[in-house]
C-alpha cells in the first residue's frame, strides 16, 4: 500500500524538484515540448500572437491550419518555391525536423477567428456573385474546379495538406493567387494550384478573393474534422496534397 502510494508520488516529487530548479536559474528550458511558444517568437512577431494573423492585414494566420500544409510552406520557403526574403532567411538554417515541429505547434492552436472585414466590397455585386459561383461551383467549361472541391465544403481546409481559405485578408489572397499565376509562388510538383490559377483571368482572381475575404468563419468548422480524398481526376495532380487524386498507375494496389 505504502509502496504504491510512493510510486504514485515519486514522479510528482521529481517534477516539482525539476520545476524549482528551472525557476531558480533564469535559463531557457532545452527540453522542448513546453516552450514552443517561446521558440516561435520570431514567427509571431509578424503573424500575430499565437499565429492568429496580424492586424495589418497581410501576414496570414497560422493557427489551426493543417500541419502538413504549414510544413510544406516552410519547406517551400527554404527550398525556393516560395519567395519572400524575410521568411527564407529565417527558415534556411533550420532542420526539416524542427520546421515540422513548428508546423505542428501552430496547427495545434485552436483559437477563435476574428469577424470578416466589414468593408464594402471594392467590386460590383455581379462580380462578387461571379466570385461565389467560381468558389462553390467552379466552371466546367474552362476545367476550373471549385474551391470547395479540395478546400472542403466549408472552405475551412482538409487534413492533412489543404489550408482554409476563410479568415484571410483580401490583400493576401489576391497577392497569393497573382503570385501563383506569375510563378512567384510554387508548390511541390505537380503543382495543381498553379495549373488552376493559370486558367483564371485577373477578373476571376479579384472576384473569388473578394468573395472569400467577406465570408464569416463558421464557428464549428475545423480542418481536423474534415477528411477528403479523391476529389480530383487524373488530369490534375497535387504534389503538395497527393491524397486528392488517384495514385498514378499503381497496379495491384491492395
Amino acid at each position, binding site marked *: 500500500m505504502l509502496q504504491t502510494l510512493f510510486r504514485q508520488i515519486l514522479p510528482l516529487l521529481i517534477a516539482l524538484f525539476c520545476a524549482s530548479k528551472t525557476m531558480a536559474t533564469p535559463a531557457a528550458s532545452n527540453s522542448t515540448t513546453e516552450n514552443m511558444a517561446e521558440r516561435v517568437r520570431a514567427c509571431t512577431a509578424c503573424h500575430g500572437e499565437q499565429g492568429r494573423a496580424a492586424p495589418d492585414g497581410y501576414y496570414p494566420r497560422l493557427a489551426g491550419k493543417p500541419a502538413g500544409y504549414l510544413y510544406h510552406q516552410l519547406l517551400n520557403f527554404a*527550398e525556393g518555391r516560395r519567395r519572400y526574403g524575410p521568411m527564407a532567411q529565417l527558415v534556411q538554417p533550420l532542420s526539416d525536423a524542427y520546421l515540422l515541429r513548428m508546423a505542428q505547434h501552430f496547427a495545434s492552436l485552436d483559437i477563435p477567428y476574428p469577424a470578416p472585414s466589414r468593408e464594402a466590397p471594392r467590386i460590383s455585386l455581379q462580380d462578387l456573385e461571379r466570385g461565389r459561383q467560381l468558389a462553390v461551383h467552379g466552371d466546367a467549361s474552362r476545367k476550373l474546379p471549385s474551391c470547395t472541391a479540395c478546400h472542403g465544403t466549408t472552405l475551412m481546409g482538409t487534413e492533412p495538406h489543404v489550408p482554409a481559405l476563410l479568415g484571410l485578408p483580401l490583400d493576401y489572397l489576391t497577392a497569393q493567387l497573382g503570385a501563383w499565376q506569375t510563378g512567384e509562388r510554387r508548390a511541390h510538383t505537380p503543382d495543381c494550384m498553379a495549373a488552376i490559377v493559370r486558367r483564371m483571368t485577373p477578373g476571376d482572381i479579384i472576384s473569388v478573393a473578394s468573395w472569400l475575404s467577406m465570408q464569416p468563419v463558421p464557428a464549428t468548422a475545423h480542418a481536423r474534422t474534415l477528411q477528403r480524398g479523391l476529389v480530383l481526376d487524373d488530369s490534375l495532380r497535387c504534389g503538395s496534397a497527393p491524397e486528392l487524386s488517384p495514385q498514378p498507375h499503381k497496379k495491384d494496389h491492395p
Partner: protein
Amino acid sequence: MKKWPLWIRLPLQVSAALWLLTAAWVLWDNWGRQASMPTTAETLSTRDTGPQQIERGQYLARAGNCIACHSVRGQPLMSGARAIDTPFGTVYSSNLTPDPETGLGRWSSQDFWVALQLGRTPSGRLLVPVFPYNHTRLISRSDSDALWQWLQSLPPAHQAQPTHTLRWPLGTQAALAVWRSLYFDASTQVEVTPRVPTPVQRGAYLVEALGHCAACHGQRDLLGGFPDVQDLSGAVMPAQGWYAPDLLSDAQTGLLSMETAQWLRRLQTGYHDRSVASGPMAEVVQHSLQYLSEDDAQAMLAYLQYRARQQPQPGIESAAAPRWSVLDIGQDIYKNQCAQCHGKQGQGLTQAYPALAGSLAVQQSDPTNLVLSILQGGYGPSTQQRLEPYGMPPFKMTLDDRQIAAVLSYVRSQWGNQAGEVTPLQVNRIRASTDH
C-alpha cells in the same frame, strides 16, 4: 607603300611583341607547365573503397563545407546547381555525384586530385575561382582519395550544371586564364602535413586547406583575387553584405580573452553566451563545423589562438558616447522590442538569447552585422547539440532607419559597452544594399 616613321613603328612593334609574349605566357602558365607538373602518385588509399574510407571521406567533405555549395536543399546530396552570387554575376556549383552525363561518373581519382590541385577538369577546362582551389590544392592526396571514394558512393543524380551568368568576358576561358596567371600559382611547393601533427599543425591544415576560412575572412581586391590562404584579417563579403570578422583580433572575436570552452561551443553550435553565428557563418556551422570531432575543433582553435598570440592585440577603443537625444529614442525601442528576450540589463537568457552586455559582436566598430541582424532577424543553425534554436524576428518592416540607428546606439553604449553611435545613414546604406 611608304613606311611609317620609326617613332611610330617602334612602339607599336614593341607593344605588339609584349602582348604576344604575355598571351603566350598565360597559355603556357595555364595549360603548358601545369600539365607537365608532376602530381603525387596514387596512394594506397586510392584503391581502398571500404566503409571506413567512405566515412572518412564524408567527414572531410563536411570539414571542407563542400556540401553547402554543392547541394541544394530538397535536391539530391552533392548534385550541385546551387546559385552563388558574386559581384561579377551568378555562378552555379557543379554536380559531384557519379552520374556519367552530368556528374563525375567518367572521372578517375587522379582527375579529381588534379581538379583540387589545379582547378581544372580532365579536358583542360578552367574552373571559375568561386571553387577555392587555392585552398583545395593544400589537401593531401590521401584525403583527396577519401573524398573521392565518398563522392563515388553517393547515388548518381542527373542534374546538369546551369550556365553561369557572369558578365562577358569574365566567364570565358581566356579571362579565367589571365585571372589565374595573376592570382593562382600552382608551381610553388605545398608543405606536406607532418605525419604526427601537433594540434596547431592539424588546425592549420583544417583552416587553410579543408576549411578555406580565408575565402570569406581574407581580403580580396577589385578583381576578386584569391586572398592569401593565411589571410584571416576580416573582410566584407561583397555579394552577401556581411562582415566576416578578423579572426585573429581578440577585440573582434575574444579568441584569447574568452574561455576556450565558450569558443568551442560557438564552433559546434553557432552559439555562445554573447553572440550567435548569423548569415553565411550560420550556414558554415550548419553544414560543416558542427560535425568536427572534438579534437579537430580544438585543433582549429589552437591554431587560431597561436596565430593571434603572434600579433599585437590592441584593446577595444572606446568611442564617444552617443547623443542623449538618440539614447532616449533608443531606450524606448529597446524596452518595447528587445528587452523581453535580451533582458532589461542586456543580460540575455542562458541557452536561448545572447547577452548584449559585454558582447564583442555588439561593439564591433563596423556595425554592418548588427544592422543586418536587426533587419533580417534570424535563427541560429539547427545542430546536433542544439536541435531547436531560438530566433529573432526581422524588424525591417517595423523599424525605420532612424529607429534602428537609435536602438543600436543605445545597446552599444549601455551596461559597460563602449562602442560608438550608429547613424541612420549607415543603416540606410546597409538596408539598400540588401533590398533586392
